[in-house]
């Protein structure tokens, strides 16, 4: 690490292990570097530390009191015990206090299964609580937007208040009253209305006090699979996880990436996932015009399409989509090149304004409401049409050569697309009237079903992983397109998405040198000198 060269380091002993960290690192953070996880509520890596939950107390040898490890800096030569009897006893005490007024309604609580109170109490809480007193009750409050507040479950960690203050810089939450009567509340009736980032407080609430209305009682946490992904709703490319049950995306959650989205994402992106669950899908390859089209298995379909492409009428024109991965777009570009070259355009929606997150403006809901405009442009594709994602194809009705479409549903054009084309091949996920003149309709997977990369607004190439199984015979577009290229005498079909990615670099020097391993889970900048594998984390 270059850090060690510039910053003074301290070395100390933590649970018998030697740790060396830059001076100023807290005990809690230092512990994480050696895989020791100190329980904590109020500390969050994206927020200030008020050291008020008192759960992270650890024993520093020689100190009269236990130290809150979230704010106590590790000192040279210190000996720290996170698991000493004294530290454990005190943490057990703090946990007991948490439970004294907690409703323990885990069976109906959305947080159950991913709740820090459950986790910590299971790990080191008392077997039997000692409280015999009646519990205090606050009830439920609608904070506005997607957020519900279950006051009885709240641990008063103030993460939510601090997020709104420090990160959203939109202080709509506060603690009212004091002592045991203290409760989180909004100002006036407006609540969170008007906040573009309030959804994050649901994520960072360590218990089930803040829950999402959209997700309410939809799925149990333990039934959800988490797939690392990238938000497809704008060109910021916030790192996310798809939370999926039974091949249905249930919600999106931000995944930490300190250089893109920190721990956050915007509400706009968060709530646009339903389309990933669309049931109207193109499921089988169909070759032939709409009137006499025949559903075929892939081998036959590809052979028939390739046969026709072998004599593709000129010129070749293609409509792509900036929501497709670099792998898909690259494979399309390869096919167009194999056909002798031709123009590739894409249409994409653009917002009227950007929405920056004031406390971390690197994260901004961008103008471009597609994830891969950068990828499309470095592959030489041209953006056409209006900012609502329509138009730009006015001259195409009379096109007599070959037409290829990848991903664009062409809703605004409808049945009028491509009637006079000599050959029209449509690759997409959803049935559309615009494909009615196509000579072949080939089913491809959505981003949620496949593996690939997007290049975001700053030129960071980021990977996403499949979270949902594709329906029917849908296959990744890069695979379908590469299979056609192979049949036309081109290179053999790549064996994996990564191999497909490496092939894209042939067309875009910006991608050269990048590998899936180098991109990892945190992304890599275009043309960045490639770091050694694994060292980016």
């Amino acid at each position, binding site marked *: 690490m270059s850090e060690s060269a510039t910053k003074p380091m301290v070395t100390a002993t933590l649970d018998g292990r030697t740790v060396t960290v830059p001076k100023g690192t807290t005990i809690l953070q230092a512990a994480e570097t050696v895989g020791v996880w100190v329980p904590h509520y109020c500390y969050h890596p994206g927020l200030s530390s008020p050291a*008020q939950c008192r759960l992270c107390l650890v024993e520093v040898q020689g100190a009269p009191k236990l130290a809150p490890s979230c704010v106590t800096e590790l000192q040279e030569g210190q000996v720290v015990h996170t698991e000493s009897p004294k530290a454990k006893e005190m943490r057990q005490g703090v946990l007991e206090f948490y439970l004294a007024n907690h409703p323990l309604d885990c069976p109906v609580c959305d947080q159950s299964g991913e709740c820090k109170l459950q986790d910590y109490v299971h790990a080191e809480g008392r077997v039997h609580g000692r409280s015999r007193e009646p519990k205090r009750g606050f009830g439920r409050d609608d904070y506005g937007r997607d957020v519900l507040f279950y006051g009885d479950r709240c641990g008063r960690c103030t993460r939510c208040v601090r997020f709104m203050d420090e990160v959203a810089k939109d202080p709509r939450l506060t*603690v009212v009253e004091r*002592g045991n009567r203290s409760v989180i509340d909004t100002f006036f009736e407006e609540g969170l209305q008007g906040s573009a980032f309030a959804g994050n407080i649901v994520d960072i609430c360590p218990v089930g006090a803040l829950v999402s209305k959209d997700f309410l009682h939809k799925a149990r946490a333990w039934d959800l699979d988490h797939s690392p992904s990238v938000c497809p709703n704008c060109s910021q490319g916030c790192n996310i996880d798809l939370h999926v049950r039974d091949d249905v995306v249930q919600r999106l959650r931000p995944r930490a990436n300190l250089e893109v989205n920190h721990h956050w994402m915007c509400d706009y992106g968060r709530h646009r996932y339903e389309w990933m669950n669309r049931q109207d899908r193109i499921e089988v390859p169909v070759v032939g015009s709409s009137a006499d089209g025949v559903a075929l298995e892939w081998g036959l379909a590809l052979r028939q399409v390739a046969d026709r492409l072998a004599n593709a009428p000129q010129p070749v024109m293609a409509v792509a989509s900036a929501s497709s991965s670099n792998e898909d777009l690259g494979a399309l570009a390869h096919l167009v090149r194999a056909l002798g070259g031709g123009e590739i355009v894409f249409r994409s929606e653009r917002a009227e304004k950007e929405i920056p997150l004031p406390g971390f403006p690197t994260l901004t809901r961008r103008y471009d409401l597609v994830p891969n405009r950068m990828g499309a442009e470095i592959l030489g594709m041209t953006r056409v049409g209006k900012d609502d994602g329509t138009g730009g194809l006015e001259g195409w009705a009379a096109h007599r050569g070959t037409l290829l479409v990848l991903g664009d549903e062409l809703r605004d054009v409808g049945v009028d697309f491509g009637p006079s084309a000599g050959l029209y091949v449509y690759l997409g996920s959803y049935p559309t009237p615009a494909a009615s003149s196509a000579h072949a309709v080939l089913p491809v997977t959505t981003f949620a079903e496949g593996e690939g990369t997007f290049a975001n607004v700053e030129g960071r190439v980021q990977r996403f992983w499949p979270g949902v199984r594709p329906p029917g015979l849908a296959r990744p577009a890069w695979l379908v397109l590469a299979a056609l290229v192979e049949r036309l005498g081109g290179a053999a079909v790549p064996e994996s998405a990564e191999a497909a990615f490496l092939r894209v670099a042939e067309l875009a020097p910006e991608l050269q040198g990048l590998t899936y391993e180098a991109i990892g889970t945190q992304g890599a900048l275009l043309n960045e000198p490639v770091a050694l594998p694994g060292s980016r984390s």
Partner: protein
Amino acid sequence: MAYPYVHEKEVQIVSRGWGKPRTRTIDGWRELDGYVGFRKALEMGRAAVIEEVKKSGLRGRGGAGFPTGLKWSFMPKEKRGPHYLCCNADESEPGTFKDRELLRWTPHQLVEGCLIGALAIQADHVYIYCRGEFFEANQVLARAVEEAYAAGLAGANILGSGVSIDVTVHQGAGAYICGEETALMSSLEGRRGLPRVKPPFPAAVGAFGRPTTINNVETLCAIPHIVRNGGEWYRQWGTEKSPGTKLFCVSGHVRRPGNYELPLGFPMNELIYDVCGGFEEGRKLKAVIPGGASVPILSADECLACCLDYEGVQKSGSMLGCASVIVMDDRTNIVKQVRRMVEFFAHESCGQCTPCREGTTWLSRILRRIEGGKGTEEDLETLLALGTQMTATTICVLSDSAAVPVASSIQKFRDDYLALIRRGEAVGVV
């Protein structure tokens, strides 16, 4: 009692002038050698003032008894921006009522003490954080500050010395916790009155992020006398380690409760039976809380030999705190008294720290149950265990304070608890 009458054993230093409306005016204060100390301090210079205060051995009267001269010397010598002095006039500890009298009878004594303190720590601004419910004191104090400005004793270039010190009286809004020094600063800054984690200590990062010293009213009131007469002079009273005089706020079942200014080290027995006139006919001493609600309760036996100085009270098993002596005779239901104190702390907890927020309420609920005749012996063990969990685990010591009366009363008056538990009958819960 210092006001309205004086006991012969009292040594009146800070309480001189109480009861005479004239002392409230600048002229009245000058007749008592007022502002002589401040003029002297301006001539001596800040380092010599700190030395003199160190020599006097004056210890903070806000509760902890920390040496004032030493505290002042923690402030940065080199100034890189504003310094502040906060006078803690938020007096709200149950059983404490000394600062209020200082504020309403001798406001200039405090203003003078503040000016000397500010000079010593190079403060540009003094904030007197005055408890909001002290309506009269707030008015009296505001008038005194106005007079000091008019006389050129406060503001820019004081008495042509080149020294500038502003003084602002800030009225609190009704929270005991704002008497805790870091909460006081948060409140002063216009935030919620929440204690802050130390370090950083106020002398490094205090009010408005600047080096700050916080001193109690009584502490600052002793300063003009010490500077005027010298540190050695102050040591003629009190003990080696606890020099000087102290206001004792005596309340409870004595015949003459009130404020008494006595040399530190004064015997508790003498205070109760002589100065305060002892008990009503047929009553005898049961317990004393010698330093405000947050110190351990003493049994009658422990009181016998107790001397009222910082070390003496500690030797007897408690703390002098702010010398608020709460005396209880044999009619007292200890459980009820403890419950009321704990309810006070539960009401006043700021609620940040889990052990304090949950613990204070939990303790009070158990105590209420015991008082209502529904307790068990197991409850006593729970009370003690919760007390341990609340001690040394939080941001400020309010949490510890709430646990103290519980633990000490169970230890010393277990029979009172057991009587309620075993008889299983309610005593008037109020």
